[in-house]
């Protein structure tokens, strides 16, 4: 029988169903899952060396394990080696896409499709302050580097942090 309460209940059920579907849709659709896989970095490679400096490089893979495209707007490294801890050399880092290197320090935004991967290239420059680079690196600690990424998928813009550690033994071994 069509009565006002029945109509109201039907409308409420209909609205509830729509709300549930709207709630369910993004869950089923998923989002990006962009990960910089620092634990899979390649061995260090010497790019350049001089009396008081050393430039090394490592390749770090990234992957989008999610179901949606990730637009990576920026990535950048932060070397965690303050002079309070180690002052014999200054360490600077530069991160860029392996397939799209630039000479200006700019990081061009790019898309990573679901279940696709790629590589970032991390370049570290060690410049000794007093002695030769060989001597300076004998006293170095493990170099911890935070790699920040800023990107957007279907949800809010994210800023994520991945940590990479370059072991002292690895550095000493290549000089």
């Amino acid at each position, binding site marked *: 029988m069509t009565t006002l309460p029945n109509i109201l209940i039907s409308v409420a059920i209909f609205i509830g169903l729509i709300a549930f579907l709207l709630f369910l849709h993004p869950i089923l659709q998923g989002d990006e899952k962009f990960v910089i896989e620092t634990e899979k970095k390649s061995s260090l490679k010497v790019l350049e060396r001089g009396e008081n400096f050393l430039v090394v490089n490592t390749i770090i893979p990234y992957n989008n394990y999610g179901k949606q495209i990730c637009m990576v707007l920026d990535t950048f490294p932060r070397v965690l080696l303050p002079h309070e801890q180690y002052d014999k050399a200054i360490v600077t880092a530069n991160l860029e896409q392996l397939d799209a290197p630039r000479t200006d320090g700019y990081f061009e*935004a790019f898309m990573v499709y679901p279940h696709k991967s790629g590589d970032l290239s991390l370049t570290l420059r060690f410049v000794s302050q007093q002695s030769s680079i060989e001597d300076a690196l004998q006293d170095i600690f493990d170099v911890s580097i935070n790699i920040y990424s800023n990107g957007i998928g279907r949800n809010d813009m994210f800023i994520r942090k991945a940590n990479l550690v370059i072991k002292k033994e690895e550095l000493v071994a290549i000089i």
Partner: protein
Amino acid sequence: MAIEIIPIKTRILTHKDDIVEAIREYCQTKTTKDDVIAVAESVVAITQGRAVAPENIHPCLLAKILCRFFPQVGSISTRYGMQALIDEEGAMRVFCAFIVGSLAKLIGVKGMFYNLAGEQARLIDDFTGTMPPYDKCVVYGPKNPVELSEKITNALGCYGAVVADVNDLKKAAILGTSKNVSDAIASKILIDNPFGNGSQKTPIVIIKNYPTIIETI
């Protein structure tokens, strides 16, 4: 007769540039009274200050819900791109376009949303869609392209001007022209994307001897 189109290389034009002055700077000496100036819509939008960083866009609930229903290759599939559309065209218009577009799609009619949601639905460029340094921004479509075309024509004393959205997929949408230039003919002339890609930095092209071309097309 072969159509002569001259791409003009420029510096990166920013929101600090006046697009008419920039065109005058780069094109004045190369343009005659029979030429038409065509300019890429994204550069016009950027010079109008219509590139917005995501931190300055605040997606509402409607944007968060609706963006999920658009394929990710489109520019309104992120909540920021969708919010940009809502900011420009209004929440009610976008919502109604979505409802009607969805119903139309159920009966096999595609593209209704884009016809109803306003021209910005087709013009907004999402992140990575524009050349650096605007690759990290949402770039809205340009404002007042017809008026701008008239301004360019008057400033350079040329035959006419066009603001166009052209890509490498053989699509040339004409957003605005000065009064003596035909949309259809301009679209045909620009179909092969003489602007090139962003890194070629040729956002302006000069179509030489336009009156002669229209006689042959």
